[in-house]
């Protein structure tokens, strides 16, 4: 059975696109890019993370065009990304160099540098603030002025640019095996389609750009018995990482000769999983294993869920779906999943007719 070419929808499509614009602007208000950038931090972070391109302004424009629909905004950004040249690769970014604005541990009360709450919804009552409906710009400016005036001199020598990692403490105590740094060039899933089994670099790249809801749901499923055991957050930090690029005119990779190009805000999480290991003498020894999560912006739920899935995929227990890399990695990408689901809206007239014919035949007993 062949495909049948049809036409006749051109005018309807033009009117449909026009109607889409009408729906965006019909209330007569224009949403400025600056307003979206200023007031929709969570959505911007989510869209930048899932589209795997860091630029708040581009994310804001995409969100405006998509009327706040993250799946559509991510699609727009990924499409735009494919038109841009990749000019450079950054020097290796280390989270030890983060300027921290939030840093907590659920494993230890006292950690070097202390627990820094930063900005978080975690300590709010989650009651709708109806006053926001009547908020005025004058009030906001006044509040900001007051906030900026509250610059006390803090008697605290903590350097938020060089906070020690909780993991380093555990490594120094021998509670986590200290693996050396590996310098293999990472694989890049945007250059070559993945093949199973994947390398760790591919898994982390797919997880970090995964759809927030999908990563969270699968991470949750793992905790509920479809995967790993209950982990404890060793450290969660939110902050800015500086990005440097080697001088393209010089091949000596001298740090001092590199270009500073800007900074990115990320959330990074290390979760701790108790595990038992059988030693050579047959004795079983307990130790801690680590799950790693990181994503653009402040998106703590996603980063924690990523760290759970990272650990699941490292273990690869065949009894659990969340340990199956094909199950996890092929289903968490926003473009892949929404694209495939959306394709069901495309005309399937011929294939469906064929199915219908088969049904009719079985009904007739042929």
């Amino acid at each position: 059975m062949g495909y049948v070419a049809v036409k006749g929808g051109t005018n309807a499509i033009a009117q449909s696109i026009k109607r889409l614009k009408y729906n965006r602007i019909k209330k007569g208000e224009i949403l400025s890019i600056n307003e979206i950038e200023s007031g929709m931090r969570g959505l911007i972070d989510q869209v930048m993370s899932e589209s795997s391109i860091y630029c708040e302004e581009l994310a804001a424009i995409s969100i405006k065009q998509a009327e706040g629909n993250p799946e559509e905004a991510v699609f727009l950004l990924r499409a735009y990304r494919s038109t841009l040249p990749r000019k450079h690769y950054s020097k290796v970014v280390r989270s030890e160099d983060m300027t921290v604005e939030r840093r907590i541990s659920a494993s230890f009360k006292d950690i070097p540098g202390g627990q820094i709450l930063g900005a978080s919804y975690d300590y709010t009552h989650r009651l709708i603030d109806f006053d926001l409906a009547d908020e005025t710009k004058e009030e906001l400016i006044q509040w900001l002025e007051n906030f900026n005036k509250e610059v006390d001199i803090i008697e605290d020598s903590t350097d938020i640019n060089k906070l020690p990692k909780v993991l380093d403490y555990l490594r120094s105590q021998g509670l986590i095996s200290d693996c050396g740094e590996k310098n293999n060039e990472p694989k890049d899933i945007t250059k070559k389609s993945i093949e199973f089994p994947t390398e760790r670099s591919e898994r982390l790249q797919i997880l970090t750009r995964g759809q927030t809801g999908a990563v969270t749901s699968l991470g949750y499923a793992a905790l509920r018995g479809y995967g790993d055991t209950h982990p404890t957050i060793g450290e969660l930090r939110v902050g800015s990482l500086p990005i440097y690029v080697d001088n393209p005119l010089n091949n000596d990779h001298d740090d001092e000769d590199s270009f500073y190009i800007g900074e990115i805000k990320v959330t990074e999480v290390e979760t701790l999983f108790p595990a038992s290991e059988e030693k050579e003498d047959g004795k079983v020894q307990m130790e801690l294993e680590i799950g790693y999560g990181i994503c653009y912006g402040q998106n703590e739920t996603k980063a924690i869920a990523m760290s759970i899935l990272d650990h699941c995929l490292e273990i690869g227990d065949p009894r659990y779906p969340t340990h199956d890399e094909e199950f996890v990695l092929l289903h968490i990408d926003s473009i892949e999943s929404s694209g495939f689901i959306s394709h069901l809206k495309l005309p399937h007239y011929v294939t469906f007719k064929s199915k219908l014919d088969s049904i009719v035949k079985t009904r007739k007993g042929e």
Partner: protein
Amino acid sequence: MKRRRRTEILIKGSTDIAKKLAQEIIQNYNVKTIEKPNNGLVMIKTRETAKKNLFYLGEIFVTEAKVQVENSLGIGIVQGNNQELAYHLAVIDAAYNGNFKEIKTWLQILLNEEKSIMADNERYKNSVLKTKVNFETMDV
């Protein structure tokens, strides 16, 4: 002043500084544009802390420009869509690569701006550390 420190001051500081320094070169020399400010991506290579492997975190949107002043090449790269700053950074970079006489007077300007950035950082640090928890053990 080496490139890393210089570009950090010029990007974190006021864009007026980069504009002022670049204008000096533009006025005194013939600046040839090799590559107009244009957009592209930089892939971020990251080291994770669980098994200490390298992986690609994602890309960052940048603007890049290339210029030639006398026999000296200059490159300007900055995150976001920032055409003017990228061009000014490229001109300043060319001046440093060519060791032009103007850069001698720039050192103090850059050091002053660095001080201002450090003061901002200190204020930011103090503000963030206000959210640091001071645990007290409760008597039960």
